[in-house]
């Protein structure tokens, strides 16, 4: 597998990926129109529109709408433009221009997306094409308001790996050496009676009886009792607690900050005042503070052999960020692809980060004050870490971007709903496909070739603005002028060398065979292939 350098890395846009993927999956395509469709995806309508590209100006095209995506293909010969946008990404649809609008292309739709871009289509004023398109889009982009199912429940994709089996709480606790004489497993929350936003299975301090937990629960917001994050030893987590205050702001501040990021990168990137504009968004400052908090937590855990209780008001935003980042710093297992999936599954999904409220899946209320890019901020922190330690993570940037794309797409059930109990009620694991199925059945694409497994390595990123960067490949990926070199030349060269190495090893093996055939005593050969290259590390 090392010999197959990924020939086309291309942009990290969801479009390209799904095109490639669907063709590989043998997905249906409308004959002659090459509209990619997932199993279970139904075509609703198509319209001739002018796509007002913010970079190249108006482009005539045909837009297709299915119950999963908006797909646009240019009708102009000199443009190969294709837009492929899952409807889940849409946060808001607005009509622009009225019956009296005069200017060219001033009548149409303006679509705001959750992934930092806007799509503008100009339509003909006559007929009802705009009204049709608006209604259909609204219906399928915001199914909740129309008593329609989210697409994940209609998706009939099949993968050869089942992503739902990735995370098994008992097994994961066992990997961490739990339960032990400090911590025990409890089924107190079996039917989500104690706390409906916590998972059914919990690890709690050994000496805390179930009765204690019930009593504590009544004092805490929504009955969220303290439970383990990293699972580190402690005698008494509540004793001698040192209170540190982190300057991390609330979810509303984060939402506004991301809006400002969009303002400076879409559609045009600030040029000469780029740095002060970037600073004025405070986005990286928030990243810095989250990382700093996580380092602090991780440092306490690793140096003092003490436990850390991380809490915020509800324990589902800041807590999830800090615990999962600290775990990523301390435990190299979480830096593997599966480890990271487990981390997300456990600390975010299972412990009740309110994905539905924060993202607003299928919900039309774009101004909902509960929405906030908390999970995006976490993924950004992970990206910053992987940038600082480019050999420490098994996954690559594309892995992170794919996770973020499907955070919104509604193609998979992974990020749906606010907590485990709601998910169980909806039978999410039975009725939807897991994002990890997609990723794990095609792992090579998401692997970092430089990954070097170092089991006991603790990673502390430098939480300084000198090292933090705006994640250009994610936030500015729609701008064709800002194109990072893909593939990265160091990576490309490395892949070539890996291929060369494998070829040489093969050739040496062949020579070896030829030699031993000639020699009467095969043991005279001093080195078998495996002895010969004892130092060759397998990077995959």
């Amino acid at each position, binding site marked *: 597998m090392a010999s197959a350098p990924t020939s086309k890395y291309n942009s990290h846009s969801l479009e390209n990926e799904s095109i490639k993927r669907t063709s590989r999956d043998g997905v249906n395509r409308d004959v002659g129109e090459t509209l990619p469709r997932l199993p279970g995806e139904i075509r609703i309508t198509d319209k001739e529109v002018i796509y007002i590209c913010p970079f190249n100006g108006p482009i005539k095209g045909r837009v297709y709408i299915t119950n999963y995506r908006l797909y646009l293909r240019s009708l102009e010969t000199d443009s190969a433009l294709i837009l492929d946008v899952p409807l889940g990404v849409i946060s808001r649809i607005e009509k622009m221009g009225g019956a009296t609008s005069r200017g060219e292309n001033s009548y149409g739709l303006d679509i705001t997306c959750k992934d930092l871009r806007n799509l503008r289509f100009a339509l003909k004023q006559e007929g009802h094409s705009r009204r049709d398109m608006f209604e259909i889009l609204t219906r399928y982009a915001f199914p909740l308001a129309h008593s329609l199912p989210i697409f994940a429940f209609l998706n009939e994709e099949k993968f050869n790996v089942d992503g739902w089996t990735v995370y098994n709480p008992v097994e994961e606790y066992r990997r961490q050496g739990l339960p032990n004489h400090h911590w025990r497993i409890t089924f107190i929350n079996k039917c989500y009676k104690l706390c409906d936003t916590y998972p059914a299975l919990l690890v709690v301090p050994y000496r805390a009886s179930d009765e204690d937990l019930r009593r504590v629960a009544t004092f805490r917001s929504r009955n969220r009792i303290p439970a383990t994050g990293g699972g580190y030893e402690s005698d008494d987590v509540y004793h001698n607690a040192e209170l540190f205050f982190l300057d991390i702001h609330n979810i509303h501040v984060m939402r506004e900050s991301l809006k400002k990021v969009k303002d400076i990168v879409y559609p045009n990137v600030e040029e000469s005042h780029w740095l002060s504009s970037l600073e004025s968004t405070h986005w990286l400052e928030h990243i810095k503070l989250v990382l700093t908090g996580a380092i602090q937590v991780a440092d306490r855990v690793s140096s003092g052999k003490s436990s850390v209780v991380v809490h915020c008001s509800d324990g589902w935003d800041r807590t999830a960020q800090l615990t999962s980042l600290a775990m990523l710093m301390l435990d190299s297992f979480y830096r593997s692809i599966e480890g990271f999936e487990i981390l997300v599954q456990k600390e975010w999904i299972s412990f009740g980060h309110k994905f539905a409220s924060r993202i607003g899946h299928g919900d039309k209320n774009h101004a909902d004050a509960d929405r906030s890019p908390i999970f995006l901020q976490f993924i950004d922190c992970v990206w910053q870490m992987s940038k600082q330690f480019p050999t*420490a993570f098994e996954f690559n940037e594309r892995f992170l971007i794919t996770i973020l794309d499907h955070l919104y797409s509604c193609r998979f059930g992974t990020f749906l709903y606010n907590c485990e109990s709601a998910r169980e009620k909806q039978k999410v694991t039975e009725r939807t496909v897991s994002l990890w199925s997609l990723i794990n059945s095609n792992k090579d694409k998401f692997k970092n070739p*430089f990954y070097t497994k170092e089991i006991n390595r603790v990673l502390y990123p430098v939480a300084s603005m000198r090292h933090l960067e705006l994640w250009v490949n994610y936030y500015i990926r729609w701008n064709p002028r800002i194109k990072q070199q893909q593939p990265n030349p*160091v990576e490309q060269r490395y892949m070539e060398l890996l291929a060369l190495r494998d070829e*040489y090893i093969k050739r040496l093996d062949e020579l070896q065979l030829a*030699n031993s055939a000639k020699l009467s005593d095969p043991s005279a050969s*001093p080195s078998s292939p495996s002895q010969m290259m004892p130092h060759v590390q397998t990077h995959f």
Partner: protein
Amino acid sequence: MGGAPAASAGGRCERPPLLPRVAATQGGGMLGKGVVGGGGGTKAPKPSFVSYVRPEEIHTNEKEATEKEVTLHLLPGEQLLCEANTVLKCVQEDSCQRGIYGRLVCTDFKIAFLGDDESALDNDETQFKNKVIGENDITLHCVDQIYGVFDEKKKTLFGQLKKYPEKLVIHCKDLRVFHFCLRYTKEEEVKRIVSGIIHHTQAPKLLKRLFLFSYATAARNSPATDPKKHAVMFDTLQDWCRELERTKGNMKYKAVSVNEGYKVCERLPAYFVVPAPLLEEDIEFFQGRGIPIWCWSCHNGCALLKMSALPKEQDDSMSQIQKNFSDRIYRTVHRPPYETAKTEDLSSNFLSLQEIQMAYSKFKQLFLIDNSTEFWDTDIKWFSLLESSSWLDIIRRCLKKAVEIIECLEAQNMNVLLLEDNASDLCCLVSSLAQVMMDPHCRTVFGFQSLVQKEWVMGGHCFLDRCNHLRQSDKEEVPVFLLFLDCVWQLVHQHPPAFEFTETYLTVLSDSLYIPIFSTFFFNSPHQKDMNVGKESQDSQSRPLNLLTVWDWSVQFEPKAQTLLTNPLYVEKPKLEKVQRKGTHFKHQRQLSLPLTQSKSSPKRGFFREETDHLIKNLLGKRISKLINSSEELQDGFREFYDGWHSRPPSYQGLLLPHLEGPEIKVWAQRYLRWIPEAQILGGGGVATMSKLLEMIEEVQRLQEKIEARHHSQEALQAEAASPPRTSGRLSSLFPFALLQRHSSKPVLPTSGWKALGDEDDLAKREDEFVDLGDV
């Protein structure tokens, strides 16, 4: 070794010295010997120049030398001037300070600190050790600013001091910061070392007193490599002819020797290139001013030219003469086979030297950080601090200007004439940047070094003044060459496979600006160099002085370290091309250059008149119209050209353009952050992937050798001494520069990123997001 052991970690300056130096007597009997590097022989070289050393210093020197020549490495010709003992060098480590006791010395070449625990350095990452400048050496020219700490207050030190500081803080031009605590040093030694350092680094110097000459005199007999091995020096007519041939410029341009012996002017080199029809007397008329001088020819025949402006004349008759002259020159050049020329007036429409100076002096302060607190205090405001320095914006403007010029040459088929008062600052910068982008030869080590020789050294860039080597005028100190290197770094960073050299190469080149054993950056012009070397040779009635060129990297680095200067990602020219090139002798790789727009021959004859007028206006100093640049049409052409290039996959052996957008212009972290321990990422950064790549290259090579060995002899199996794999361990992200190895894996924590919870009100205001740290 004995002596006062280094104060252990955590020990601050308060700790008194344990013992007077025992080691001081160890070296007894080594009188005058010293450890002399280079080819200096064992005899202490006799100074052959007027020395700054005052008699009492020489006395000190001899007295102390008996005891302490053990670890002081002196170059040939280097003289110890003064020294102080039991100086405590403060080292920042893991955000706590520790100190190392030792001796602080000042020679006529450097300030050096000789620490007592020098042995600790041996197991360090010494792979990249500089043979000339040690970790604790600061050449006198590298000193930027000296501060004294008096009762916790930092003050700039200069001139005669009334009071001596308890701590000396030295900011270096390569951005190192040294803290020397003098609290335990004898008073008279403090006086001597402080005033010595201030005097030798800050007092104006005469050119003849540069260490360059004492070194060259002392090392006269050591074999120097032929500089031509490392670069084309452009000090012969032949070199220019070859360059013309290489770029196919020889049809329209000719190399002239009219300035041999600097008869015409001292500003220009002895040999240079002008348009073929230009007459010698034209060159002489205004001492080489007002005539186009060739820099480089593009594959389509268009050339990059430069011109120094004519003196501004008040006198009407004189200005009439100037006008007639310019008119005539212009007509000579401006008819076929010459393309229309676009004039770029760099003195009026572009950056000013003051802007560059101001920007850099703000910018460098961001990296001259005294302690951890300062680092974290400035962290939140980092981006706006960076922006307010304007340094990155200046880089962007330079790169953009080069792209504009390239667009003219490549897409519009026009000659470009760069105009500047002396044609020796921004002309050098813009012209060499354009060449780096257009000519892949300039992206090889040899080609780049030749380019610097051609455009900067022979182009008469006043290195001596711009680096303020003689401390004669701070006003003249402008880092134009450093700006060029930073622009090149942006290109290297954006397109790594296109360059044969690495960022480390650029970093050590920038450091070499301050090492006065190389002549390259220590003269204002080739004339000045020749005069001074010539005179010296008459005095000493032997061969002329053999000044070293910076391009011989073996002077500074061992072969192993030199490998870090070449880029493993470099995509070499196809083999065939190489052979061909040899055959045709420096053939310019025109076919490799990416043709972007169809070359439309545009003999805009109508344009001619206005152009002439414009040129004349400029030459006469009446820069009324800003013309050309502001034309909308040209801006559109630029956009199209720029976007067009970037929409194609880059061709590393052809035209190379930079990205100019905000997020693409970055801080050259290796140069600027390398000495800041807080900025280190242990085992991280681009170094981590690069070292994996190098490991893989070595492994592939090893396998290759094995296969070959097996093909040749099947018996020789035993002979394969399997070379041990590189155990590179964990390198710092600032490798190869970060010498401070952090010993623990403790995280570097911002000191101001959070605050311990103070008053309750604050908590209420700030929401309830906090972290309990159960400390048990």
